[in-house]
Structure formats: structure tokens, C-alpha cells
């Protein structure tokens, strides 16, 4: 049984259909990435799954339990790490943790034990008594994640946990999520950083304009746009003669052109590139620029939606 099953969920704000018939599931122990640009409906979807927002239609089950904003049982199974630093900055890290532990129904002594455990996990034990306002951005981010772990959730939902974080902290956050998933926690991870999704997620759903556009493992998605690398070359004057020369090259599978730009498909662009450039130079074609695109989620996204993720 999947830990989370979302079926035909929709949500509308006035005229804006924020989420439109979204369905997906997360298996026990799986890390699922929900990928999409800002405004694609990620946060609304997350809001409904965390039980913050009511949905207009559809169903959500958590560990088989029908989930809703009032179902405390299903809410107890979920750990939530919001995008903002949702912390009481005037209180200490320990105060923050103990407070939310109590809200998740831990007894006083359980809350105390769990707090120290989480502090250890996120590496804040030595600063636990300090007000959060004294924390660096990275430390606050770590505490933000730690708060999601208090109830030992079956499903951890991380909503863009690395936004505005320096590369070093980001790495350590990704590391700790990885550690968690190895421990068997199922994770729903939203991001608009492609490389994070590629690094962490078992399966990825691409959401855009409130709809899931594609879903699958990275390999499955990439295969949708083809296995080949793409080389884009802009020439001074691409004549039919130049294209023929390129077509004749053995590693090149396909050649097409549009205006001054020539598009080549090849199974391995790195190996083929010296040959291509050499051939073009000899043919006397003036090269203005060369770009290599390896098939990744970015390319998948681009081919699905016609726009970049960060636009």
C-alpha cells in the first residue's frame, strides 16, 4: 500500500484553477520529487497534502487513511518542513522543538528526549539554548527541517527546503535528507532545482499550470525526450553543403537546421565534438557558438512545457 495516494485532487481560487485533477502516489520508503516552476501549483498541492488547505475535490489517503484538514490521525503521520523559516525567532531552538513536539502529542518526557535527539540529528546541540534570531541562515534552515522530524513521520514533506541557502548548507541539507530516506522515511520533495531532484528522488512528477505533465523515474522521463545528446551550433551561413558534410559524419544520427542554427543529435556529444568542429572548420563554415545539451530533467521539462524551470 502506498504511503500517500493523491487522486484527482483539484483546488480553485476564484477564477484561478491552481490545482487541476492531480494524481500521484508515493510508495513506502520512496522519495518523490514534485518539480515545477514557481506558481505551478506545487505549494497548493503541498498545502492540501499537509492538511493546511481544504481541497475542492479528489481524495488523499495517508497510509490508507482518508486524509483531511480535520483528521488528526493522518496528520500525525506526516512531518512538514515549510518553505519559509517557520520558527519562533525569539525562542530558543530547544523551545521551538519542545513546543511542536507537544503539538504532535508527545508527552513532556517524550518531547524532551525527542528534542535532544533531533538537535543531535541536525547538529545544533551546542546552540540549542540560543534564541533562533542569533542563528545563521544555514542553522535556521537545519532547525526548520528538524522540526519536521519530531513526530518520527512516516511521510516527510519538504517544500523547497534549500531556497536561498548557501551551497555548503544546501549540500548538508541534501545529505541529511538522503540519510533519512536510507532510514526508510518516505519523502515528498518539491524543488525547482533540477540537480536536487536528480540527486535525491526515486521518481519525479513534473507539475505545470496545476497539472502533472509527466511522471516517472528520471530514466523514464529522459527517455521520453530521447537518449541522444543535442549539439546546437550557430554558423555564419549554414548552406546545404555544410549540412551534408555533417550528415556524412559517422557519430551523428540526425541533422536539422533552422535559420543559422544547426541541430545535431548524437549518442555521445563529448566524443563527437572535436570531430564536428574540425569538420566544420575545414568546410570553411564560420562558427559563432556551440552548445551541448545532455538529456536531463531540465530538457524533459523544456520539451514538455516549452519553457525553462526558472523562468
Amino acid at each position: 500500500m502506498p504511503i500517500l495516494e493523491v487522486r484527482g485532487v483539484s483546488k480553485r481560487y476564484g477564477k484561478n484553477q491552481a490545482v487541476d485533477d492531480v494524481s500521484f502516489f508515493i510508495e513506502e520508503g520512496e522519495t518523490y520529487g514534485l518539480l515545477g516552476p514557481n506558481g505551478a501549483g506545487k505549494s497548493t498541492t503541498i498545502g492540501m497534502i499537509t492538511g493546511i488547505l481544504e481541497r475542492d475535490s479528489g481524495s488523499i489517503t495517508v497510509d490508507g487513511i482518508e486524509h483531511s484538514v480535520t483528521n488528526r490521525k493522518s496528520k500525525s503521520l506526516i512531518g512538514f518542513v515549510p518553505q519559509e523559516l517557520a520558527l519562533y525567532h525569539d525562542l530558543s531552538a530547544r523551545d521551538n522543538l519542545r513546543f511542536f513536539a507537544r503539538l504532535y502529542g508527545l508527552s513532556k518526557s517524550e518531547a524532551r528526549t525527542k528534542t535532544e535527539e533531533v538537535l543531535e540529528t541536525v547538529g545544533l546541540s551546542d546552540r540549542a539554548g540560543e534564541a533562533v534570531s542569533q542563528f545563521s541562515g544555514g542553522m535556521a534552515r537545519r532547525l526548520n527541517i528538524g522540526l519536521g522530524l519530531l513526530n518520527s513521520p512516516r511521510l516527510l514533506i519538504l517544500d523547497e527546503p534549500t531556497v536561498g541557502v548557501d551551497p555548503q548548507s544546501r549540500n548538508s541539507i541534501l545529505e541529511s535528507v538522503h540519510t533519512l530516506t536510507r532510514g526508510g522515511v518516505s519523502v515528498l520533495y518539491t524543488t525547482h532545482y533540477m540537480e536536487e531532484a536528480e540527486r535525491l528522488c526515486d521518481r519525479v512528477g513534473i507539475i505545470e499550470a496545476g497539472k502533472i505533465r509527466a511522471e516517472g523515474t528520471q530514466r523514464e522521463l529522459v527517455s521520453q525526450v530521447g537518449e541522444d545528446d543535442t549539439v546546437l551550433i550557430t554558423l555564419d551561413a549554414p548552406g546545404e553543403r555544410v549540412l551534408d558534410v555533417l550528415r556524412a559524419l559517422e557519430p551523428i544520427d540526425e541533422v536539422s537546421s533552422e535559420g543559422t542554427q544547426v541541430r545535431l543529435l548524437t549518442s555521445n556529444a563529448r566524443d563527437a565534438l572535436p570531430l564536428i568542429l574540425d569538420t566544420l572548420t575545414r568546410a570553411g563554415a564560420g562558427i559563432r557558438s556551440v552548445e551541448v545539451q545532455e538529456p536531463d530533467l531540465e530538457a524533459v521539462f523544456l520539451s514538455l512545457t516549452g519553457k525553462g524551470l526558472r523562468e
Partner: protein
Amino acid sequence: MSNGPNTLTMIAAIVAKDVRQRLRDGSLLVFGLLLPLGVAFFFNMLLGDDTSRQTGSEYVVVDSDAGSLGQEFVDAALRPLADDGVLELTTADTEDEARALVEDGGVDAAFLVPEDFTESLENGDDAVLTVVGDADAPVATHIAREIGRAFATEHLRIRLAVASGFDSEPSPEDAALLLEEAEAAEAPLVLSEDADLEWRELGNATYYSASMAFFFVFFAAMFSVTSIFDEKAGGTLARLLASPIPRGAILIAKLTSGLVIGLANMAVLAVATSVFFGADWGDPLGAGALILTGVTAVIGLTAAVASFARSSEQAANWLSVLAMLLGVFGGALFPISQLNGLAIVSYLTPHRWFLLGLGELSAGGLDVVLLPCAVLLALGLVGTTVALFRMGRMVNA
């Protein structure tokens, strides 16, 4: 099947967290303790603990009269009043001395009986009694004049009877007869005094201690109620909503924090002002009931108003204005008499009912606080209902 964790425990956790936050940011200390104590102290210092702002007026008399009439004035008109304790009387030897006393504010007015007081009267001339009043004590001066006039009229009553009794010069026999009658006549008006009415009014120390405490409870409660907007802006509200706690419990918890903080403030202030300023809050049970229902009213009103605001700043601005207006119209800053035009408006404020309840309580009897308590409780419940009704809007985006 267990329905998740215990809601009451969660509310308690939120309340404890809120109180801790208010302690940390100092708002509890400043608005809950320092400001009300400071302002109550200031009032107390300015006004003293006399319920009356005036004490009995003080007069000085200089009797330079060679004859006996001056002495009669002092003995018949002034001395009885002084003996009753309604005025303070001193004597001076010279006019200059008396004038000096008036000048430097030692007394409110001086009666100057001239040397020829008796003589002038006996010669059929006007005898002049001079009142020298302090320009800063117009009421006392005016009263002094009236004392003099009353003496003059009474003294001349018999002559007046003769003078107004006949249109033309009467025969000595007739005049003598009337004179006798007039002398024998009893004064037609007697004034009895009932000076035993109870005090249903708070002394200054108590009034300002209580009114300031209540006035500032608004500000202490404000921070609790508006913190829901801060939580929304800071993202922690999302966390609260995602946690297994019923939605209504979040608002209930916020209101409870305000109530706890307000009650603690009032309790501390009641004790502190009793000890330091000699305030008398009356029967602890009655005062306790008034405080409990009074703070409930404040929380209810605060929550109702806040529920229409969009942000913490907006709520705080509105609530500051509300607290100020209710304070002014409810008599928290200066006592509103029932005679004042504001009196009707004042009954719309919790301040008025709270202070009225304490005033009634000061005269004894617990049942007198029932009506004020009921009104305050009703205000609180109405406000809370409005807030709960609009809670969805406060909690959701």
C-alpha cells in the same frame, strides 16, 4: 480508536509558548506591569488619596471691632461651622497679617471686621464686612460672601420686619409689638443633616490603580491576539495547521493566552497597588469575579476587532485606537460622572462596568457585582463568538 493527541494539552502548550514569547519580548513586563504601575503611581502622586480634591476651605478672621457685633459674627456665624468641621478657621490680629495669609495661599479667604463695625450700625450707617478672597479660590471666596450675607440678613431680621411691616411710620406701640413678635418668632426653616450616606465611590488610589490596570490589559491582550497574524506571516501558522490540532483550538489557545496574561497582570497589579499605593479593591471574591469577567470582555472585544484586520500591524493599530477610545469614554483616564454627557456612551465600554462594579463593591455586599459581571461576561462572549465566526478568514491565507 484514539482521536490523536489530547486537545487540551495542545492548547496548554500553545498558551505556555505564547506566554514565554511575551515574557521574552518584554511586552508583558512593559504593558503588563511597568506602565500601569507607573501611571497609577503618577496619578496617585498628583491627586493624593483623598476622594475629594478639595478639603474644607480655610478662612481667617480679623475682628478689629470696638463693639460686640464683630464678636457675635465670629461666635454665631463662623464658630459653629468650624466646630462642625466644615471649614477651618483661624484668627489674625491685623488686617495686613490676614491679607498676607491670603496672598501666599495659606488660607482661601479672610473676613475683615472693621473697628467701627458696631458703631456704624448703631449710628444707622452701613457697617462694612470685607471679604478678601484668594483669586485662585473663587468658590471659597464666594462662600465667604454668602456667610457674611446670611449673618447680615439674620442680624437685621427684626429691623427688617419693622421696616417692611409698615408702609408709613408706625406708632411706637405697633412697632414695639411687631418687634416683640419678630424676636419671639422661630426661624421658619431648619436644616437637618443626614451625613451618613455610604461611599459608593472608589478612592483615587483605587480608582486609578484599577482603571490603569484595566486600560493596559488591552495592550497586554493585544499582543496575544495579534500574534496569530505574526504566526501567519512567519510561517509558523502553517506548521500549527499541519500539526494534528483542531483549527478552532488554535484560536482558543490564542484567546486563552491573552486571558492568562491579562489575569496575571490584573492579579499582580491588584496586589502591588494595594501594597504600595494603599488601593482597596474590595472583597477579594467580588474583585476576582470582576477581574475575571472584565479580562474576558477585553479579550473578546480585542479578538473580535482583530478578526477584521489583515495584518498584525493593522490589528495593533486598530486595537490601540480602540483601547484609547474605550479608555477615554469608559472613564479609565478620568472618572466619568453619571451627570456627564458621556455617561450614556460610557456604558458601552467594559471599563465603565468594571469600575462601576468595583465602586459598588466598595460599599459592601457581593450581589452588587452581579450586573457588572454579567455585562462584562456578555461582552466577552459576544466578542469571542464574532472572532470564532471569522476565524476561518484569520487562519486561512
